[in-house]
């Protein structure tokens, strides 16, 4: 590969690495925290939110579902914005 191609490829890999590791952590940490609370201190999730018939657990569960979807959306947004132009440069 040419010098310029080398540099472009390396920066592509670096960008990918950054976003992938970041989003992986943003997926794994919330999920396993959620699971751990259920395993170790489920009563936290059982508490009702003041004045409502909704528990912290159910509320956080719904939020986690939305969060997971949002992660996938974030990745595609980033990929189309940053990654694809780099790939197209390499294709030339």
């Amino acid at each position, binding site marked *: 590969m040419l010098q310029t191609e080398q540099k472009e*490829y390396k920066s*592509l*890999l670096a960008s*990918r690495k950054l976003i*992938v590791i970041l*989003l*992986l952590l943003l*997926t*794994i940490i919330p*999920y*396993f925290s*959620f*699971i*751990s609370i*259920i*395993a*170790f201190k*489920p*009563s936290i*999730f*059982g508490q*009702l939110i003041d004045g*409502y*018939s*909704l*528990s912290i*657990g*159910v509320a956080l*569960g*719904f939020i*986690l*579902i*939305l969060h*997971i*979807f949002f*992660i*996938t*959306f974030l*990745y*595609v947004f980033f*990929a*189309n914005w940053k990654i*694809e132009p780099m*790939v197209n440069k*390499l*294709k030339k």
Partner: protein
Amino acid sequence: MNIIAILMFVVFVGFTLYITYWASKKTQNAKNFYTAGGNITGFQNGLAISGDFMSAASFLGISGLVFLTGFDGLIYSIGFLVGWPIILLLIAEPLRNLGKFSFADVASFRLNQKPIRILAACGSLFTVILYLIAQMVGAGKLIELLFGLPYFIAVMTVGGLMVLYVAFGGMLATTWVQIIKAVLLLSGATLIAILVLLQFDFSLNTFFNAAINIHPKGEAILAPGGLISDPISAISLGLALMFGTAGLPHILMRFFTVKDAIQARKSVVYATGFIGYFYILTFIIGFGAIILVSQNMSYLNESGDLIGNSNMAAIHLAHAVGGDLLLGFISAVAFATILAVVSGLTLAGASAISHDLYANVFNHKKINEKKEMQVSKIATIALGLLAIFLGIIFESQNVAFMVGLAFAIAASTNFPILLLSIYWKNLTTKGAVIGGSAGLLTAIILVILGPVVWVDVFKNSQPIFPYKYPALFSMSVTFLGIWFFSMIDKSKDAQLVRSKFNSQFFRSQTGIGIDKAIKH
């Protein structure tokens, strides 16, 4: 027996058979059979993939679990959802960039073909067959309940139809059957949820309040129940669900039906969105059933339990809010759901036999497409017969553990091999084969020795292995095994394999070098 349901189901089956006929005209070569021509859009694929996850088991099973215990259903829902970011971030694009028809293509890309293909095919077949048995048994019981058909006729009908879809229509037919069913299921479930919430003026507060007041456990249903009771089980189940999704062959297969990595990415976002929305719906439906079904005498039998069992909660709710019409529609959709999922599973299994084992292992890669196609149709019929046979044998068994075991195998065998072959330079064929096989055996043995099989099925008093979920241990065995046996491997094959890594990685990250898709 419900005339409306039967009518709708006949219409659905007729329509899907017509699609199969249409697809069969276009499915004359291997590329179309395995990947539907390669031009499925990200949106269509997302719908099809979500269809695989919105099975009868999740629709009826999870809403049934919510009906019984409330919050715990959410634990499974989130578990089934969390695997998707993992696939998106690590697997989807490299898979599409490196592979042609099956995930074994990718796993064996730079490694020695034969042993890896055999292992990957075994991992796939185990996963597929376990999943199939669970689906067939569930299907038989459900149809027995909904349409009054005898169990073995129900199983034979499902088996027969799925063989037709797959043998004649291949991936094209199964994809479109999934898409149609996904649209029907999402619409039906949305309708039920809307009709339920309408009765509470769409106030979630009033809604949950009513449920708390009716359910015998009161406020406790909004809290975790006994599903996850100790940290090891929690982590093990979490690992199996999170990484097992990335090792399910019938899911991975769908990534080859799209044109390129961009569409592969989009597929996952759409799928995650649909599945997430669906699981929120099942939660609402479960609670709706608590309020509108659990106290209604017409849905209960003499002992006060739900007619059928908790799996019927969503079906009864459909009747409660929408009468016979909605009941008929949802029953037909539940049946459609079963058919779509087992078809996808059968296609994945047939592909493992014809593409991985026959074409690449036994035939030393002398690619004769016509022969491969013939083998895939024979494999489809064989798998269909096997599924019917096993479905009938396992009628009275509790087969829920089989899905868990399928996920554990997917997480401990398929996923690690796939992940490491894409990302780890020092992987060698020996390492992958020894480590992967060890993980596969570990998962199977630990489940057999565990509480579900050793105690519940074999009727012993104490399980030898105390945990229900083996993933933590079997995954560790696989990763350690692969790492160790790769590092000590100094053979010529090992050097060759490592030298190919850089070019493989380049292609996996950029897509430069992949097949051109066929327009369809």
